[in-house]
């Protein structure tokens, strides 16, 4: 009779990759649907193109690498990358933006490193950064919201024409995001007191009635999805809280120093991709540190970079850059921030055994 002796680990969590990906997809779904409704058919077309190219890129790479295509393709990771990328694109961008971005995310951002779990950078954000650097015009074309049945919304065929043929009259539809608007106006030496009224309201920004990419419109829905994931323990609170708190503190501090030059915390927290980045992108388990302290440093670093790029950098929005830069710092953080070894002090020596736990010596002249 043979005895099967299994090796460690003996305890397994029931979380599999498809399950976690499914939960995240479910959490991001309300904001996605809201964004698609807000921007109509072209947004849906772009969304589908991005996701399909992500899946196609994944399948091609897996085939080339000689790995099993079906299990990896169906684990939902490529799908989630596609969704997050699509959420970060301008909703009326032409189809090839989504296609190039999808391929770049999967091929360069993920499969080149060896596939799921091996990537150094968040694939969706890497693709967004590459697109933004390569196609600055197409990637900064933002729209005022135009929900269906509102007159300004394009019909289905018109939507296809916009996605696959280009926007007929760009100047008639485009409008600046709040961050872009602030950036431009500050550049023209105007003061925030004149800029913000009329263009910005915290309530509309939170609910999502603003221009922007699909995922940066409704902060409320993103927040609900993020909190739900937190409750389901898909990730811990460390990264999002550190990120948001850092931005909050920095924005409040500088706003207090000079309210005419620096936008306040409400503007920063409720605009751009900050919520999406904090809950859905910076929390990526593959590209963020493993320890709690490391995650706090990572989140705070993202927050500092976001604020610095938004306030002094060349681009009005910096969540993608911040996350990618901190992804690059993640191995360093993991190297220096290590958990204490069980039974040892932080310096690596054996912990002193408490006096009461010691057995009385059996005899004198023992093993000393």
């Amino acid at each position, binding site marked *: 009779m043979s005895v099967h002796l299994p090796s460690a680990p003996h305890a397994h969590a029931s979380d599999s990759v498809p399950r976690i990906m499914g939960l995240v997809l479910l959490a991001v779904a309300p904001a996605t649907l809201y964004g698609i409704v807000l921007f109509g058919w072209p947004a849906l077309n772009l969304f589908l193109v991005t996701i399909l190219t992500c899946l196609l890129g994944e399948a091609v790479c897996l085939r080339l690498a000689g790995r099993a295509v079906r299990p990896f393709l169906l684990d939902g990771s490529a799908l989630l990358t596609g969704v997050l990328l699509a959420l970060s694109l301008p909703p009326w961008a032409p189809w090839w933006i989504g296609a*190039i971005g999808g391929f770049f995310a999967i091929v*360069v951002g993920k499969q*080149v490193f060896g596939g799921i779990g091996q990537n150094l950078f968040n694939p969706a954000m890497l693709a967004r950064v*590459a697109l933004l*650097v*390569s*196609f*600055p*015009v*197409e990637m900064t074309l933002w729209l005022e919201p135009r929900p269906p049945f509102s007159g300004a919304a394009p019909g289905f065929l018109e939507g296809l024409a916009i996605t696959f043929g280009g926007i007929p009259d760009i100047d008639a539809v485009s409008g600046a995001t709040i961050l872009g608007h602030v950036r431009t106006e500050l550049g023209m030496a105007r003061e925030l007191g004149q800029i913000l009224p009329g263009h910005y309201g915290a309530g509309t920004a939170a609910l999502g009635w603003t221009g922007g990419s699909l995922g940066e419109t409704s902060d409320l829905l993103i927040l609900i999805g993020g909190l739900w994931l937190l409750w389901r323990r898909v990730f811990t609170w460390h990264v999002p809280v550190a990120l948001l708190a850092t931005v909050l503190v920095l924005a409040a501090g500088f706003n207090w120093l000079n309210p005419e030059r620096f936008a306040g915390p409400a503007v920063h927290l409720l605009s751009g991709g900050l919520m999406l980045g904090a809950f859905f992108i910076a929390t990526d388990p593959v590209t963020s540190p493993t320890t709690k302290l490391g995650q706090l440093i990572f989140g705070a670093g993202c927050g500092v970079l976001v604020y610095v790029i938004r306030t002094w950098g060349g681009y009005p929005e910096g969540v993608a850059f911040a996350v990618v830069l901190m992804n690059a710092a993640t191995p360093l953080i993991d190297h220096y921030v290590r958990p204490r070894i069980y039974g040892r002090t932080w310096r690596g020596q054996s912990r002193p055994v408490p006096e009461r736990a010691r057995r009385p010596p059996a005899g004198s002249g023992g093993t000393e």
Partner: protein
Amino acid sequence: MSEDYRGIFADGLWRNNVAFVQILALCPLMAVTTTATNGLGMGLATTGVLLASNVVIAGCRDLISQEVRIPVFVLLIAALVSLADMAINAWLHELYKVLGLFIPLIVVNCSVLGRAEMFASKQPVLASAVDGLAMGLGYTAALMLLGGCREILGSATLFAHASLLLGDGFAFLETTLIPKYKGFLLMLLPPGGFLALGFLLAGKRAAERRWERRAAGRGKVGTGAEQSPSTA
């Protein structure tokens, strides 16, 4: 001895290619390969310097003592690079304006000193000349290939401004593949250079592995040679 020279050429062009196998001289490789023409110009300049330095160093190899060889090599190479710099400035001034900084930097191009140390200081003049030529041509081919890939993806042209480098007779080389291309800026920036180099390296290794397998398959016909594990 012709077998030897063939081997030297194969080393320079493929088996031991400066850029794709030794992964040397990447600084000029990344910096100038935004078009195939720039790559060609830089490659030819490097080839000239490599050839001349190999010949000179092989000729002087018995005069140079082992202890001071590196400073002497550097001095010789620096003198040759200065000559090349002035020559290009005088006769190919337009190209000089494009390559500018990178011509003097050939002096620190590790492939030149590398060939001097590894080959020319131990081999006769003729073999060293062949080695310098082969290594230089291999590097030129790599620069042109990388430059071509980046140029096609980045700006959808090929051999743009070739007439500046080669004279008006070569204006036919200048092609525009997609007339109203908006430009894929990333490929023209340094990250694009690294990405393109990475994919070219992967392609080269994949091709070699395929040839190896095919050669192995030809060796053992009909014994399921396709499944034989490759030694690589």
